[in-house]
């Protein structure tokens, strides 16, 4: 039999079933080996999907249990999620590689197999949400990834007790978000009688302008806003990211919120469609407004932070603001901008948090004061943070530049000068906190008696793979931009 034929499902099933296998074997070395192998395999599967889908241009439909939609659950791999899947799988693979060292440093040796099991479940859950074509199946996989994510956060970097309330709040808000989503899906099911996204999309227009439809839209959006930590529903994110074990922060900062953003896009544009009654106000007012506010407030908050994990967590809020802005424009180029941003930001934040992790593994926490002059002792690690920061600001020849370019272009195409000014403002404010780090790490001298930092290629290579990707996609953005636009085209055809 041809495995590639089943790539759409294997990409999920492999990591999903590796988790129990890890538990069965209960050996931390085998555990990491399995995790590494399966994430790599998953990455290859997703890559294959990406290539085939972009080659043929039409979606792959995989009927689980051979039951056709809407009777059964189907996976639909189209240009949109074929674009997101390799990103998640790839970043996961790199993070898993880094996990080898970071987990040894930060997590009790007796918990490793449990850790890797939860780790794999998170990854599988995220991929599942993206790949599935069934509204309720999204919820199930959302819970798989969330549940294990709560636990991963709760472990806490170096058993930091503050990770516990962080994880609990994350759990409460995450569950509320998921429940809201379920309510929304329930209402949709009530008026359409089906759970298959495509089927719902086809039947919604017939229902026309109903309060029920609007309520469904509102609840699903709210749920996803919570999950993607859109300002002002972002309060769970910062503690969760900053107290979690470094490698967990890296994985989540890079992928978790992106998945929710994608699901939101899929539901808003793929199911309801821009012409759905009430949509224009949701996008043009709510998403755009919250996006701008988040972009500004997130950056300002980042400037005030002295803990680097918190700082970059705050900047994630800002970045999510940018993505929201892209969606709020409700144009093809706006959506494409969000897709580009989604991809690049995943790379950038992954790189930064992995680098931070390499330091946190030695210092416990990474703060402005305890990385003074670190550049001389761990040049590669600090350089990775430096490059990441430059990409966050959006300097040329980094992927961040491309994101900003297309976002601003999309904004200006709509003539939304005010939004453009705010966006630019927040990106220039980003310069301040990045510069603070550079000055502390490069220009200051390491104080006497400060612990000596060390680095080995094994510690920085994974961060640098992502940095290299950031630079490569800043210089060769063609692939990403094209893919993003074709993805956007799937949801908003026609206009420009």
């Amino acid at each position, binding site marked *: 039999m041809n495995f590639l034929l089943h790539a759409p499902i294997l990409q999920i099933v492999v990591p999903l079933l590796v988790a129990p296998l890890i538990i069965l074997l209960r050996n931390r070395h085998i555990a990491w080996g399995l995790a590494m192998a399966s994430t790599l395999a998953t990455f290859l599967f997703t890559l294959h999907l990406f290539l085939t889908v972009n080659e043929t241009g039409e979606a792959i439909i995989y009927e689980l249990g051979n039951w056709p939609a809407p009777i059964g659950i189907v996976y639909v791999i189209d240009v949109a999620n074929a674009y997101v899947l390799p990103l998640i799988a790839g970043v996961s693979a790199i993070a898993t590689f880094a996990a080898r060292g970071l987990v040894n440093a930060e997590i009790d040796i007796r918990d490793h197999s449990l850790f890797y099991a939860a780790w794999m479940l998170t990854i599988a859950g995220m991929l599942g949400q993206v790949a599935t074509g069934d509204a309720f199946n999204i919820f199930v996989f959302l819970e798989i990834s969330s549940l294990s994510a709560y636990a991963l956060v709760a472990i806490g970097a170096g058993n930091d007790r503050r990770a516990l309330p962080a994880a609990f709040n994350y759990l409460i808000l995450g569950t509320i978000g998921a429940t809201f989503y379920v309510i929304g899906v329930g209402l949709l099911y009530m008026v359409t009688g089906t759970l298959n996204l495509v089927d719902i999309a086809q039947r919604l227009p017939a229902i026309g302008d109903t309060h029920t439809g609007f309520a469904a839209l509102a609840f699903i959006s709210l749920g996803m806003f919570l999950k993607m930590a859109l300002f002002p529903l972002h309060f769970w994110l910062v503690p969760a990211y900053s107290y979690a074990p470094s490698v967990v922060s890296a994985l989540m900062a890079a992928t978790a919120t992106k998945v929710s953003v994608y699901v939101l896009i899929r539901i808003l544009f793929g199911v309801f469609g821009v012409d759905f009654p009430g949509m224009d106000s949701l996008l043009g007012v709510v998403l755009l407004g919250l996006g701008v506010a988040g972009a500004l407030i997130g950056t300002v908050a980042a400037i005030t932070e002295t803990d680097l994990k918190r700082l970059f967590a705050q900047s994630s809020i800002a970045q999510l603001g940018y993505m929201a802005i892209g969606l709020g424009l409700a144009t093809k180029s706006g959506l494409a901008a969000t897709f580009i941003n989604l991809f690049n930001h995943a790379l950038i934040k992954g790189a930064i948090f992995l680098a931070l992790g390499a330091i946190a593994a030695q210092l416990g926490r990474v703060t402005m004061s305890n990385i003074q002059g670190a550049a001389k002792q761990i040049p590669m690690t600090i350089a990775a943070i430096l490059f990441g920061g430059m990409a966050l*600001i*959006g*300097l*040329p*020849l980094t992927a961040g530049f*491309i994101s*900003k*370019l297309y976002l*601003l*272009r999309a904004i*200006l*195409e709509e003539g939304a000068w005010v939004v*453009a*000014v705010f966006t*630019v*403002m927040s*990106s*220039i404010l980003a*310069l301040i906190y990045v*510069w603070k780090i550079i000055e502390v790490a490069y*220009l200051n001298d390491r104080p006497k008696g400060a612990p000596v930092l060390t680095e080995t290629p094994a510690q920085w290579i994974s961060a640098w793979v992502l940095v290299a990707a950031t630079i490569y996609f*800043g*210089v*060769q*953005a*063609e692939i990403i*931009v*094209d893919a993003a636009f074709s993805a956007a085209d799937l949801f908003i055809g026609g206009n420009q």
Partner: protein
Amino acid sequence: MSELILALLFLPLLAAVTTLLFRETPNIRDGASIGIGVLTAICSIQLFEMVQAGQSETLVLFAFAPGLSIGFTPEPLGALFALVAGCLWPLATLYSVGYMRGAKEKNHTRFFTFYAIAIHAAMGIALADGLITLFIFYEILTFSTYPLVAHKGNADAKSSGRIYLGILVTTSVTMLLLGIIAVWAIGGDLTFREGGVLADHLDPRFAPILLALFAFGIGKAALMPFHKWLPAAMVAPTPVSALLHAVAVVKAGVFSVLKVVIYIFGTDFLLETRASEWLIWIACFTIIAASLVAMSKTNLKARLAYSTISQLSYIVLGAAIASSIAVQGAALHIAMHAAGKITLFFCAGAIYVAHHYSDIKDMDGLGRRMPITFACFALGALSIIGIPPLGGSWSKFMLMMGALDAEHVFVIFVLMASSLLNLYYLGQPVIRAFFAQNTGETGFSEAPVAMLIPLVITAGMTVGLFFYADYFILSFKGVTP
């Protein structure tokens, strides 16, 4: 022709590499970079002549996103800028060798490496075929000059470096980038085109705003109120101030403004919409204000810095007037002012190395001890002031002509006034040096010969430029004669 473009772009990089390779043997290191500099100069001259002869060719390095590519198209203005930077670089390098050794500066290798990279960036800006390429090299230039500004590494240098980077990056990443993307969104294209990209897409009411984004966004043009970085940059060793902050960097700024006015907006468009009226006022204000500040400075380099700010606004002014003669005058002024100002800085550096004087008060009677230096200083100063038979007079004259046929009579008076101010604050040091009584010991003591040669040559240029000015009068297409 494309070989020439590649040569101009990568010879400086090559110089940077050789500098790094031979960091152990200073003489080979510096010799190599001077040699490469001479090569670059020759290439730039050839390119300029080919372009003046009307040849043109586009070289696309690579496309990094759909419709966005790093590409180069030499056109008269760019070739002129390349010529100026290319010819002055080897001189400046030779001078730097003398200076860095004379003034006992450290980290020579780092210095020369970034020096070369900066020239590479300047060349990129000069030959850029569109706004994106221009923007990218603009940023490279900013970041490659930061280590040079903060070269001394003391607290003073650091804080000045912060101001330098802060202003240049902020302005460029906010306003300039916004403007570029606005052009992209409105005109749908970012490559320079004769007659402009926006001509028939842009609503005239927005034109002034968009122009403002560029005029202020290009912080390197040092238009007030975004000029503070230039005085701050003076903490750098004098060769940096000489080549970069009198020629490469600041000229890159005004050059970009000219490019935008000519090839993005289109001078005709600006003329008929009068969208650049307000910029004339800003430029005039900067000219006068900067001159007044310069008078108040007694530190020679600071005074030269403010004089530079004022002179740069001449070029912005020409762009703002946007009549063909004015634009040509502005372009000419790039060359003229370059020759003059670099001479002045060379002299300032020579004085510093020879006697560690940087304040004008200390220079009483110094002219008798360093006659060559001060003679050259006088030439440079007169050229800046615009007195025949020195190069500066032409560009000033053309700017006045341009102002006249665009009916901006008050501009004439502004230019007059600024000339008088120049006369005062540039003349003063010379007068004091030659005629004031000095109490200290007398006797001939000049700076090292490696520094004298370049400054004599550049001083000679100021004279030569007067007679061969027509060689630099550019024939723009798409600018109504």
